[in-house]
């Protein structure tokens, strides 16, 4: 079987067979990647009897949307959902703003210690969050920030800063020098150059980093699980985990809960897939 479709001098029928085999392989992998999610969607619309008696991939006779209504209204899922939304939004805004300021100062301004500061941020990429968890917990305990959303938000900003700066770097280095030169000629201050000229020019890469941050923050688990104890401030990932504990046997409710927790990301992916793909690629390869 040919590995690439560049089948050179082979006769047409082997080439065609090769293509068919490649498509079968690629489709099989694609199927494996989405079948679990399709199954999840199907059982979120069934009751237990239907889950256990019907074939796993059989459509429910009538979709039981009441599973969704039930988990949304009965427990705290709606509260967890809105916590996830606002905590994610605040964290993403500050991460991207701070990272842009740092990247601007490092790549466009001249001062001693630039490379040291950049180095500190880049080494930060390698530090496992687990190794910082105990001191962070005791620090927040002393500051009376445990069970307070600020503990989670500050941690998200700090730990996502290195990757965000890394994605921004290449983009900032590529901006032409003439931009600042012209602005300085016109009497612009640094602040004006950054906020009025450079920030708008980097809008597309900012969008990319914002989306990557959004995915990380929305899905984050260990910080919330460790720092937050009361339901008031829990986010969806942790909330879902506890919530499912109450519904150990109601598969429809569990399915609906999981679907609610992943839908925002799936919808974002449908709308912004090109940018998400771009961001993930940019955030990984340069390391």
């Amino acid at each position, binding site marked *: 079987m040919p590995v*690439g479709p560049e089948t050179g001098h082979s006769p047409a029928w082997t080439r065609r067979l090769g293509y068919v085999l490649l498509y079968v392989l690629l489709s099989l992998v694609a199927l494996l990647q989405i079948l679990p999610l399709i199954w999840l969607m199907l059982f979120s619309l069934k009751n237990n009897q239907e889950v256990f008696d019907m074939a796993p991939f059989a459509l429910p006779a009538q979709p039981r949307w009441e599973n969704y209504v039930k988990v949304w209204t009965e427990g705290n899922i709606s509260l967890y959902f809105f916590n996830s939304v606002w905590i994610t939004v605040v964290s993403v805004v500050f991460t991207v703003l701070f990272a842009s300021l740092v990247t601007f100062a490092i790549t466009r301004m001249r*001062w001693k210690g630039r490379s040291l500061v950049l180095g500190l941020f880049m080494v930060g990429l390698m530090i496992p969050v687990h190794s910082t968890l105990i001191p962070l917990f005791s620090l927040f305990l002393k500051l009376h920030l445990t069970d307070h959303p600020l503990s989670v938000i500050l941690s998200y*900003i700090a730990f996502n800063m290195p990757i965000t700066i890394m994605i921004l770097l290449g983009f900032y280095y590529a901006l032409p020098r003439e931009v600042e030169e012209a602005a300085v000629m016109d009497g612009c201050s640094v602040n004006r150059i950054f906020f009025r000229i450079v920030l708008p020019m980097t809008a597309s890469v900012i969008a990319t980093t914002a989306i990557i941050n959004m995915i990380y923050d929305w*899905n984050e688990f260990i910080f919330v699980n460790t720092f937050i104890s009361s339901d008031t401030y829990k986010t969806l990932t942790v909330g879902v985990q506890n919530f499912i504990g109450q519904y150990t046997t109601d598969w429809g409710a569990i399915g609906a809960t999981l679907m609610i927790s*992943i839908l925002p990301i799936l919808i974002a992916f449908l709308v912004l897939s090109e940018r998400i793909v771009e961001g993930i690629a940019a955030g990984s390869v340069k390391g």
Partner: protein
Amino acid sequence: MDKVMSNRLVAALYVLPALLLLLVLVYIPIVLTGYYGLMQWDGIGAMTFIGLDNYTRLIQDSTFWQSANHTFLLALFSALSLIGYLMIALVLSGKIKGANLFRKIYLIPMLLSSVAIAQLWLKIYHPSNGVLNSFLEAIGFSNPPAWLAEPSLVLYALFVPILWQYAGFYILIYYAALKNIPESLIEAARIDGANPWQIAFRIKLPLITEVIKVTVVLAVVGSLKYFDLIYVMTDGGPNGASEVMASYMYRQAFRSFDFGYGSAVGFFLLLICLVVTWLLRKATASKDTIQYS
């Protein structure tokens, strides 16, 4: 120009908020983790200095080494799975119609939280009603195993969702790198009579060596830190059969309230991550980098 752009006060104002957060929430904690490792401490009460006792205990702790073994096994699996991802990316990077769509479908699991993935796979592995055992029974296996309850199977069972979760991520990285190879190089090889195998293994793969090295580091170091999915699916069980270093650290600190010992485990994890990253980079460093632009 020079004067405006070398305004130190402004530079400091731009850098300080982020730098302070980095120092206070990342760098000081890793130093403190090493320090707490020298203490007998329940997390709330007074700390007692006990020197290297936690670290010597760590070295003699067979449960810890068991969890370290599981961690290394996961790292090995993850590194090996890269071969499969690379093959898929090679296929995908050829002139395949719909390559973009495939690449996007592969990526979907990577976007979901490990908790949601864990809960979903708990249901897939459910001994009586899960989709996996229903399928196995339908094709004639009368007594399929309870995957997550078997000490000999649990680690492999956990590896499947990990494989599933990260497939799209690595395929995407390889795909992007392969697509970056100038078409003219491949065209030239083809004109010289290279067959598809030769083009794949003699031209494409050598040209993306750097990216392959980066992914090996990512996969291995990522596995060392693996936590969320295991914590939710098995919590290290049954009987420690799926305990990994990160989950062991968490258990010692936040379940047994032995924060000193937990910190020692955490510090060890940090050292291993840094050493392994350094070793892998050194081992895979190439003297001559390939330039094709």
